[in-house]
């Protein structure tokens, strides 16, 4: 892990294709994929704030971002996947449980979820965008249930329209926005649970420092 690499919070000018964004929010951070639009050349954030269609918003400085260490060819393909997923405007169920068979699949139509997996969270939405192109950011099999995450997961689930179905997935391992963004700090992908936590904490630390400095006008 190289702490000072790949994570930027002040400008998106250096994003040619795609990056992973994170927004710090009280109690629950949020993640999405940043990508450069083919037509207007602007950077947008594609994200899944709740059950339903993916949202696309212009990037703003509340979003920190990084670029995972993958090839330019792969970044270009993920960028195209972002275009595709946004244009399709499929309804995406909300869910925490995530498996390797979850992906946006052109063979079957909309999102295909792994067995017993209901849908996506904001973090697994980003994972699935990459994973659909066989790019693995996280070593999903190394994730374990973290009991301390459960209250937060229940709180998020209760905000979803089909909250009973979402809660029925619990307990399950949670993939967090910090962990997904943390993949941008890794030299090699996919990263295991421990490294993802370490990188994720570093992302939050760097982002917090950046936001504090902005608030103080530094």
């Amino acid at each position: 892990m190289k702490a000072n690499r790949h994570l930027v919070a002040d400008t998106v000018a250096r994003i040619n294709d795609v990056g992973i964004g994170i927004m710090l929010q009280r109690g629950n951070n949020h993640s999405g994929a940043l990508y450069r639009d083919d037509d207007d050349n602007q950077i947008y954030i594609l994200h899944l704030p709740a059950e339903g269609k993916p949202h696309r918003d212009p990037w703003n400085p509340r979003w920190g971002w990084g670029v995972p260490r993958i090839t330019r060819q792969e970044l270009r393909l993920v960028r195209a996947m972002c275009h595709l997923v946004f244009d399709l405007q499929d309804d995406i169920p909300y869910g925490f449980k995530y498996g390797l068979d979850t992906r946006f699949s052109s063979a079957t139509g909309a999102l295909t979820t792994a067995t017993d997996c209901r849908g996506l969270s904001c973090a697994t939405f980003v994972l699935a965008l990459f994973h659909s192109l066989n790019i693995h950011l996280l070593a999903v099999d190394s994730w374990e249930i973290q009991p301390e995450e459960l209250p937060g997961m229940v709180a998020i689930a209760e905000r979803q329209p089909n909250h009973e179905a979402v809660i029925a997935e619990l307990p399950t391992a949670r993939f967090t926005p910090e962990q997904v963004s943390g993949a941008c700090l890794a030299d090699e992908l996919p990263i295991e649970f421990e490294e993802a936590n370490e990188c994720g904490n570093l992302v939050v630390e760097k982002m917090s420092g950046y936001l504090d400095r902005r608030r103080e006008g530094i």
Partner: protein
Amino acid sequence: MALDTDTQATRPEKITAIVRDIYQATVPLHVQRGYPSPRVSEDDLTKHLPIFLYSIAPPTEPAPSPPTGPASEDNIHEAFLASVYRYSAEQKINKAITLVFKQVDSMLRRGEFPQVDRLFVQVDVPSLQPDILLAFLAITHAAKPKLDGSVRFIFATQTLEVMLQSMDNDSAGDLLRKFE
């Protein structure tokens, strides 16, 4: 294409060997169906084989009919590919990739798998940048079981040859393995 090490030299040779094997296996079938023996030199195998293979590979698929009007399937493919070639020539790689993703995805969603097979045959591989060729393979990867394996395989083989003109063997191989 410059090949300066033994490792680099082996991959194209392997490709040619694989293609030659397929060629030799398919010629008897071709002749058996009453087609004239293909006039393809071994040196030109990778150039001509996709078209030849297509003619015999999908046994239940009727031969493509000539275009019947502006809305015919072949015309649609040609218009789509013309846009891809133009973007490629203008170095608008991302536009080309996005177009490929959207067009092929919509065909797959409609269940037009034989048409996607035919598209693979129609693409003039050497005319396109490697990144655009990869897009064809990436967007069809999940649909592999429903597509004609030999046509897609030949496309991937040709793609690898194009990639090797600008990438080293390992990088090209690693990348292609993810999508092939």
